[in-house]
């Protein structure tokens, strides 16, 4: 792709149309993959010898946890691009991704708790991974509330971008310190990392579900970014043309 083209697509007006064309594809793909992933999770993957049927929760838990971390990194990349090249669209993409990332983070916490209860007998343990996931959730909340509190869109974009970058630099430090804290205080009690030897079908199921979440995220973020673009650009001529056509 030539440079000119890239600039053309990074203009919100062009991207609005492009995103609109891409959404149905990703949405359909995501629905198919979710169906396949659920089929593998419940009908193909065998019962686990140690954990019985309760282990099937990992088919939603692990992909959600992966997605929540991955989305934060993507957000930070968009934020970095936005700050460096002053492109409005990348800030809008970061803003469009944040709620979905927070949602996946919440799902990972929720399902982790529902997995922990039958396995460990407690709804919540201060396991290193669960704790880091909780802190990641706090980072998402901080990003979203900072953007929501600033009325001037330009300042909101840039302030959000900065806090996302600060957050992404801190995530490894936080993870490391929580892990250190956990080994010191809890000793060798319980951990997610001692997963039972994973059968190929189980891994396949998790990967299919992860790709399904991935395509879902793309579709929903594109949908949300279109709304953000429309809200911001409603005074421009191209936006009023679209609105005229939508009626």
């Amino acid at each position, binding site marked *: 792709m030539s440079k000119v083209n890239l600039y053309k697509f990074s203009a919100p007006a062009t991207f609005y149309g492009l995103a609109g064309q891409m959404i149905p594809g990703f949405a359909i793909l995501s629905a198919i993959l979710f169906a396949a992933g659920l089929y593998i999770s419940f009908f193909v993957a065998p019962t686990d010898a140690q954990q019985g049927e309760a282990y099937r929760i990992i088919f939603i838990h692990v992909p959600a946890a992966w997605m929540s971390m991955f989305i934060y990194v993507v957000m930070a990349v968009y934020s970095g691009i936005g*700050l460096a090249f002053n492109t409005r669209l990348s800030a809008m993409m970061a803003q469009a991704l944040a709620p979905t990332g927070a949602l996946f983070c919440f799902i990972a916490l929720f399902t982790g708790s529902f997995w922990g209860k039958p396995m460990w007998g407690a709804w919540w343990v201060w396991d290193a991974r669960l704790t880091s996931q909780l*802190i990641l959730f*706090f*980072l998402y*909340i*901080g990003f979203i*509330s*900072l953007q929501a*509190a*600033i009325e001037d869109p*330009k*300042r909101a974009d*840039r*302030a959000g971008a*900065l*806090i996302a*970058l*600060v*957050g992404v*630099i*801190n995530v490894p*430090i*936080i993870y*490391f*310190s*929580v892990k*250190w*804290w956990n080994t*010191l205080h809890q000793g060798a009690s319980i951990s997610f990392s001692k997963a039972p030897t994973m059968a190929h079908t189980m891994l396949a199921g998790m990967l299919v579900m992860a790709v399904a979440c991935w395509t879902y995220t793309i579709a929903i973020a594109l949908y949300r970014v279109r709304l953000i673009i429309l809200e911001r650009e409603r005074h421009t001529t191209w936006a009023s043309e679209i609105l005229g056509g939508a009626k």
Partner: protein
Amino acid sequence: MKILAWVVKRDLLLAMRRKSDVLTTLFFFVIMASLFPLGVGPEPQLLKQMGPGVVWVAALLASMLSLGRLFSADYADGTLEQMLLCPESLALIVLAKAAVHWITAELPLVAFAPLLGLQFGLSEQALWVLIASLLIGTPVLSLVGSIGASLTLGLRGGGVLVSLLVLPLYIPTLIFGAGAVDASTSGLGAQGHLSILGALLVLSLLATPKAAAAALRISLE
């Protein structure tokens, strides 16, 4: 470098004129830590175990509550915008302001921390480690906090917002700060924890003034 000393001197002078601010933060710290025994009961063994963590959390909250003062006065009277225009590096000015915040809001806490430690029945050795960990760790709080303070400058509800932004970033400092005291009382030695706190301090000294300066430009543009 001259600007650094100048801003520190000026801000310290201004802070001396408002001594009540310093005292408020200090008393918040003391009251906050004294509430815990009332909440969990006077069991000495339990208090001894909780002590370092409680003192550290109280220091965290006290430091966070006083973050609003970091830039707000200069923002209100327009000095801050002058500083943006000044040819010296904005990062140095931010560094100076964080230093003043540390001196006025956190150094008094460090001085009072042994008293609270005694309330929780910490041993003499643990008290020394507590002081050392606070001395190394609290500058990190001021530095990291300066990013949050500059991002929320002039926003309504900025005080609560800054806690959402800053508290998750304080977690590593809390873990290694309180952990240092725990490690020394359990006989592991606090050196490892204190070195990591030192590393966090160096890292934040290098990185946060630039980030906070960028945040100030974003907020004031």
